[in-house]
């Protein structure tokens, strides 16, 4: 048994106990202990949870983090329930609200909900169990050590005493919270590692689950926004007389979401800080009337804004350049910039010397476009702001960050802000950036009524905060024996570089150089499922496939040789991956996909990638039909440590693989004179059922390592395997996403020599 320090926040505990009258309420704040043990821990991943035991034995477990489809609302309570030893059938799960006085650090992002709360959730369950046992021991006057707990029943064999959790709840609630607690041996898990159905499943399939857009209240006003049609533009003036004359329209006015001198938090990204707002009595009427507002937009001047970093809380000035950008000129700028001197991030050995001595050298260039996250539930929020309170309900991945921003913007204290989390209808990173929450609050504050702010799909898609547009140049050198002796990666993008300098194959090549560059832009970008990895993982794996081919080696054997070197004799000490686990998923996929055999008419490709502390390898089997791939099978092998909830973990890997494949094949957002050229699903292509892989088979490495990320790691390697399978099927290498659009012809061919 391992001991976990509890560090319970006593003040918060008392507060909650006073609020709840029916049983034992336990409040945990473990961030201080986690932070002490892991000085590099991201401040953003701190979280809290609580248990409520009802007198009838029903246990309510509050799930602290926003549920965005990653299954935390089931898997987090499973971890608590495991240590509590409650019967899972008696568990009820509720979504915890955001309350910084009680809870802290609730966030959905970085695939870290489970990994960062693992110890804490276990502690939550174990502490409560201990207190229940202690209460029973006291009541029955027997030693604690003789008491057993199973499925919510506390029993003492010798005396024959036995009772349910509910009967001991009151006594337990009066006990001191232990400062240190034993947690279970991993081998004894009865709930963790056993599939549990999504706790919201029955509500979802009957339409009862509440998403942000489903929040309605009496006397609520409907609101929508108008933002500039192009990046690099702002509002000059408007005439709303026609709209105001329409039935059901209340008002048209402007709001400043983020005034120019406002110090923005890390998730206050918005290209359009001033907006026109229209309010009315129904969604449809405001949607109709907003089209009748005549607006004059003018170009912005180059200016700076103050932004606090995610890792560095000190505000920095960020330049917003003027001008209206174009996709075509962005490709030209990237090509140019990639040929200029860049920032060296890592260098091992003497790469240039090694390249000059190499017998074979291969160099390749890859690009990927802007992507609009397009969560199926568009941005929206409910706000009811009165003089002394702001009630804010809706879909948000960063409630605590937005609480700070909105409090500052409204001129209120944190205690006056009450953010409640609904289920989130998809985010993929977009709902980390909560400008829409602030906007809803400002509208409600202004009109002094509850308001529901709704973005139309067109608003959502053209508002910005896209996956950046990326470019990567790779070069590899082989010696006479086909050993990889030199490796060069130079990656950049608009407005950020996607480079991870210490990722594979860093550490496996004696002569290695990684460089990066970036180009400023006024087009806002955002974290997108597996940020940066979503590009680098895909293209690195495509490049390595070509290198393996050049070396005359099987692509899996080629990678395993490199991992062998990284295991025995790694180059450098900053490599961020574990080569044994990396090789492990490749070996597992080799076995499960029966690599080396082939199926009639199908071409296969393989790839593996590490991000968010997890490892995923894929094999894709496809054939071409009418110039489009028919993907018959995707095999995935994942090492994410302990698999908390297998049925949900498998769902995440299946979806993540298909999501990656879909974006790499079809999705692209382009810009013309600053305007996004796509605004809805008729011209922005997301993968659909008929184009999706017919089947995805998932396998997990059996591991006792504490759980690591799962939401993001499956995305990139699926693209890598797809790219490599496409080559086998067509004899053509694919370098530019999305593969079903001829980027080379449209944007690159005439610009190669710029």
């Amino acid at each position, binding site marked *: 048994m391992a001991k976990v320090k509890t560090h319970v926040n006593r003040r918060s505990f008392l507060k909650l106990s006073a609020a709840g009258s029916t049983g034992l309420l336990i409040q945990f704040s473990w961030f201080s202990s986690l932070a002490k043990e892991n000085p590099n821990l991201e401040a953003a991943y701190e979280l809290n949870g609580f248990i409520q035991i009802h007198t009838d034995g029903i246990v309510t477990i509050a799930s602290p983090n926003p549920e965005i489809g990653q299954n935390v609302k089931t898997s987090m309570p499973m971890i608590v329930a495991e240590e509590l030893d409650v019967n899972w059938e008696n568990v009820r799960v509720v979504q915890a609200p955001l309350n910084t006085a009680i809870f802290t650090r609730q966030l959905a992002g970085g695939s870290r909900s489970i990994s960062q709360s693992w110890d804490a959730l276990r502690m939550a369950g174990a502490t409560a169990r201990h207190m229940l046992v202690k209460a029973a021991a006291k009541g029955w006057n027997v030693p604690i050590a003789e008491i057993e707990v199973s499925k919510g029943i506390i029993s003492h064999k010798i005396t024959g005493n036995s009772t349910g959790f509910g009967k001991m709840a009151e006594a337990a609630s009066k006990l001191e919270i232990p400062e240190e607690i034993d947690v279970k041996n991993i081998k004894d898990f009865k709930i963790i590692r056993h599939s549990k159905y999504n706790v919201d499943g029955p509500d979802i399939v009957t339409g009862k689950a509440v998403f942000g857009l489903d929040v309605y209240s009496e006397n609520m006003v409907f609101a929508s926004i108008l933002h500039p049609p192009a990046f690099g533009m702002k509002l000059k003036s408007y005439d709303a007389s026609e709209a105001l004359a329409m039935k059901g329209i209340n008002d048209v006015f402007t709001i400043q979401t983020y005034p120019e001198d406002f110090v923005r938090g890390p998730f206050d990204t918005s290209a359009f800080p001033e907006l026109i707002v229209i309010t009315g009595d129904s969604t*449809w*009427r405001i949607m109709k009337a907003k089209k009748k507002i005549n607006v004059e937009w003018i170009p912005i001047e180059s200016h700076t804004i103050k932004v606090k970093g995610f890792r560095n809380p000190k505000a920095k000035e960020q330049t917003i350049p003027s001008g209206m950008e174009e996709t075509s000129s962005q490709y030209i700028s990237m090509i140019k910039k990639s040929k200029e001197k860049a920032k060296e991030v890592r260098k091992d050995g003497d790469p240039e010397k090694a390249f000059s001595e190499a017998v074979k050298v291969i160099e390749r260039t890859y690009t990927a476009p802007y992507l609009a996250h397009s969560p199926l539930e568009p941005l929206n929020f409910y706000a009811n702001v009165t003089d002394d309170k702001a009630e804010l309900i809706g879909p948000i991945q960063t409630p605590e960050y937005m609480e700070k921003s909105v409090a500052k913007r409204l001129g209120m204290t944190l205690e006056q802000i009450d953010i409640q989390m609904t289920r989130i209808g998809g985010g993929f990173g977009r709902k980390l950036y909560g400008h829409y929450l602030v906007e809803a609050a400002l509208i409600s504050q202004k009109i002094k009524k509850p308001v529901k702010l709704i973005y139309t799909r067109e608003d959502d898609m053209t508002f910005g905060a896209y996956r950046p547009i990326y470019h990567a140049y790779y070069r590899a050198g082989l010696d006479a024996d086909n050993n990889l002796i030199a490796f060069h990666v130079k990656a950049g993008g608009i407005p950020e570089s996607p480079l991870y300098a210490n990722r594979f194959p860093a550490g496996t090549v004696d002569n290695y150089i990684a460089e990066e560059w970036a180009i400023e832009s006024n087009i806002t970008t955002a974290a997108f499922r597996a940020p940066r990895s979503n590009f680098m993982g895909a293209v690195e794996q495509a490049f390595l496939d070509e290198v393996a081919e050049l070396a005359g080696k099987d692509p899996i054997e080629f990678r395993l040789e490199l991992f062998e070197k990284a295991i025995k004799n790694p180059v450098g000490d900053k490599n961020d991956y574990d080569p044994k686990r990396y090789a492990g998923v490749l070996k597992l996929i080799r076995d499960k996909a029966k690599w080396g055999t082939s199926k009639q008419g199908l071409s296969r490709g393989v790839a593996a990638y590490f991000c968010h502390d997890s490892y995923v390898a894929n094999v894709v089997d496809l054939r071409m039909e009418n110039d489009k791939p028919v993907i018959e099978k995707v095999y995935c092998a994942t090492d994410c440590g302990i698999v908390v909830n297998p049925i949900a973990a498998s769902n995440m890997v*299946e979806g993540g693989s298909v999501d990656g494949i879909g974006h790499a094949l079809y999705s692209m957002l382009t810009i013309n004179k600053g305007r996004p050229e796509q605004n809805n699903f008729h011209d922005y292509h*997301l993968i659909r059922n008929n184009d999706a892989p017919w089947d995805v088979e998932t396998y997990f490495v059996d591991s006792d390592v504490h759980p690591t990320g799962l939401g993001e790691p499956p995305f990139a390697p699926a693209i890598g395997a797809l790219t490599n399978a496409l080559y086998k099927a067509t004899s053509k290498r694919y370098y530019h996403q999305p593969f079903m659009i001829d980027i080379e012809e449209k944007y690159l061919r005439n610009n190669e020599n710029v």
Partner: protein
Amino acid sequence: MPLYEIHVNGETKQVDVDSDTPVLWVLRDNLRLLGTKYGCGIAHCGACTIHLDGDAVRSCAYPISAVGNKKVTTIEGLSKDGNHPVQKAWLEHDVPQCGYCQAGQIMTASSLLAQNSTPSDEEIRRAMNGNICRCATYTRINRAIRTASKDM
């Protein structure tokens, strides 16, 4: 302003809305039947799928004035206790991730199976091609439809 009678889930309701109001917003804003979702407003994502006399109609692009006497069924009215074979299969396969599109997926799937209780894999893929799942749960959706098909 016109007054419309609409037959929803076995009940007749009166609503006072503009004639071009999409059925989606009548269901949501007027009748508070919130299981039917808004995703695109142009009939391209399927999140708003309802049954109109059994057909899988996109309510976001279907004006109230075009409904007439047709019977509307929403996800809330698909079955009494969530026990439609498609709903049961959805739970058995633990299909949903974020869950936002699933009511629409279920409405399309149930309309498919009502018309063809033994669709081929290809027929399933084509029939479900109007419903986007942004979490990409397509493989599970199709498995669940195959399971439900045995139960129809």
